[in-house]
């Protein structure tokens, strides 16, 4: 049982951190459910990231000999931003938490 209030609070805190450009929570279909980003941008991020996550997860699971490994976290560092992706795979839900941060924010 996940404490919804705690998760909610953590997400709020995440959004308030310095340098965080935006947050998006993406469901298994690649649709942003909640976002602090611009809706269009969030849709774009969500659609692209969900594919990347599927690919990466596939790779990780293929590499693991017994297939018990799974993707935990994915960081994509670009010149300007860092996209951090925390996929959460449940039995029947796949939600992905996506944070875009500017690391050198002063």
């Amino acid at each position, binding site marked *: 049982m996940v404490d919804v209030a705690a998760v909610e609070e953590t997400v709020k*805190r995440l959004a308030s951190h310095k340098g965080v450009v935006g947050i998006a929570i993406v469901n298994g279909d690649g649709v942003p*459910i909640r*976002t602090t980003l611009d*809706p269009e941008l969030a849709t774009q991020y969500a659609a692209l990231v969900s594919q990347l996550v599927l690919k990466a997860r596939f790779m990780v699971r293929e590499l693991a000999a017994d297939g018990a490994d799974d993707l935990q976290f994915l960081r994509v560092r670009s010149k300007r931003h860092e996209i951090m992706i925390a996929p959460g795979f449940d039995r029947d839900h796949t939600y992905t938490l996506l944070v875009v941060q500017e690391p050198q924010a002063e």
Partner: protein
Amino acid sequence: MPLLRKASDGASASRARSPAKGAGPASPAARPASSKGGVGGKVGGEAGRKAPTPVPALAQHDTAPAADDYAVPIREVVRPPGQLQLSAAELEEEVGRSLTAGNPSAPASLVRYSYKDRAFRPEPIIDQQLQHFALGGSLMHRDSDEAARERHRRESSALLAHSRRVTAASRRVTAAHGGGEAGSSGQVRPSEAGGTLRAEASVGPAAGEGEGAARLHNQFNCADRGAQTGHRRPRDRGTMTEPPPTTTASGSCSRWEIYEAYVADQDRQRQTEELARQKAQAARREARSAQQTAAVGQQPGRAAGAAGALALPGDEEQDGGVSLAPLSGQAAKLMERMVQQNMYCDRVMDFKYWDDPADAVKPDEGTLMPLWEFTNERAKSRAVTAIAWSPRYFDMFAVGYGSFDFLKPTTGLVAVYSLKNPGHPEFSFSTAAGVMCLDFHPEHPALLAVGCYDGHIAIFDVRMGGGEPLYRSTPRSGKHADPVWQVAWQRTAGHELQLASISTDGRVTLWTVSRNELMHQALMELCSLRGRDDSPSGSTAEPADSSRPATGASSGSGSGRAAGQDVGGEAAAGIAGGCCFDFNRDQETLFVVGAEDGSLYKCSTAYASEYLQAYRPGHQLPVYAVRWNGLHSRTFLSAGADWKVKLWDSLQPKPVLSFDLGAPVGDVAWAPQSSTVFAAATDRGHVHVFDLAHSRAGAACVQKASKARLTKLAFNSRHPVLLVGTERGGVLCLKLSPNLRRCFNPGACPDVGDSRAVARTDSQRASARATEAARLEAVLAAAAKCNAALGEEDMALL
């Protein structure tokens, strides 16, 4: 006859009198009487006007022919012309003429039809009376009944007037007014008589008498007086509200209706699911096309716009917390750590890699590099009272918040932080009273023992992340009477969990965790030895300590007892308040106690009543911390409010080394990786780091860490960092520069449970410990040699 005249007089008199009465000072009771008199007067007046009418008629008859005055009336016989001429005889003849009382216009013979006889019968008696003139008068005959009644009435009214006078006199009316009334009383009477006359005519004698009696009653009761006081007008205020709308709803439901509704709902759900699936597919397709366009190098804006045109499935408000439920807390926590890592990227790098290049130039000095500062909104107004590193995770530690100030008690807070997330605690627990000490269980790292300012002991399970403690001491189960200054888990052979606690109430208590409660058992009753021998420092008065008034509060009683002891000269002990203790790593029954009178005692759990050794005078003010060296089982450090940090060989009664830090020392701690390095935190905000292997004279590093007072200090067992707690609720992480960790021997300290740590064999660890112990032994030997050269006086200064 006199009755009538007087009645009319009375009417006028009462009329003249009534306004005078009305204007009188205070005679409300007289007002209705006078008004009644007025009415009576009016009636009497009417009667008077009627009465005189016949009198002027007679007078006119007398005075009309007196036109020629003073003349003798001449008799003239005037005969009408047609008069009969009668002779004397005829004149003399008597003509009988009779006057009968008969009515000429009355019918002579009157017949009436008699139904009885069925025939007309003559009326035997014909009324012959004719009334020519009728005059109503107000006169009455003296002997008649009416006159008798009137006489009786007048007597009663005279009585009434008399009684009224008596009342007036009793009211102390002015003499003039009283006299006026007395004079007019004769006139009042007739007016009343007139009034009663009429009442009598209409009602009758009985009613008249009743009225008189009622008046008497009214006069004495003075019930009319209330008329003049202002009385509240009754007011009603009401509002009308619209009645709440009511509707009547009724319906009937049958089984087939329910069934149909369910079927319809299922259909609807299926449709929405399908719709969502289509939408998702469309979004995926759009995304793919956008990717393709981006790859081809065309303008991606349009595709992105198309993707953005897809409406978000829900508003932020609509599926607020519900949609987050499946998102695991782990992911969010991980993400927060990553964000923090990016934010404090430089500090993370410093933590891992930065070494002060100045150390190479100045071989005797080291520095402390400040890394993170752990703050907590909820801990802003509280002091850090305890810091404990987790025995399993090298990056995790618990901080206890409370207050050392007796006058400003706060509620307690325990926050468990990770170095990976300085912004927010991983877990936090709150307690009713301020937290004073913390200890993680070495083998069950989730168990955190907490000692509180109100003397309670609580055991939390850190994994539960808040809420109530697993166990809590109760007043019935031997709770401490004073703040609990230190708790320590015991290493036990079996499965049972035990912890020891020390408090200024003089008890060292062993707590055993049973199935559902904490069982307590006294380990030791601390007795003050002060006064048993008269050592010079022992008899010095203990100055009041302002920085820790809790100890001050109980030290008052402690010193009082000590004084009583001095007088008695007995060895019987007062209570010595314990401030801190520490258990030896090698001999688990051995522990050293620092008392608030400055003494240090070496005790054993095996002997509850005797000290193995007393180190006196240990300090001159309360001892704030004692620490056994982890690698050398004979030495321990003590720090106190008398600005001193002392190094003791537990077999020697005198300190081996003593350092004066220039401010009360809040805490002292050995570095776990080295036997010769320790650090102390002072009230001035300085951190002193000593390396005895390189210098026995002074600190290798003195650095101001904070403007606030430093309260607690703790070394990490794996990394060269230490945590310092301040009085304002801040926790600083400081990194030791290379010069301060020259003697660090990573193999010496026990492993923190971590899979990446190099597994060391027992023999390796034993050899590392042996080298460390040998190093400190050498320091001790050298110091002992120096001390032997010192004189007695110098030793006392130590």
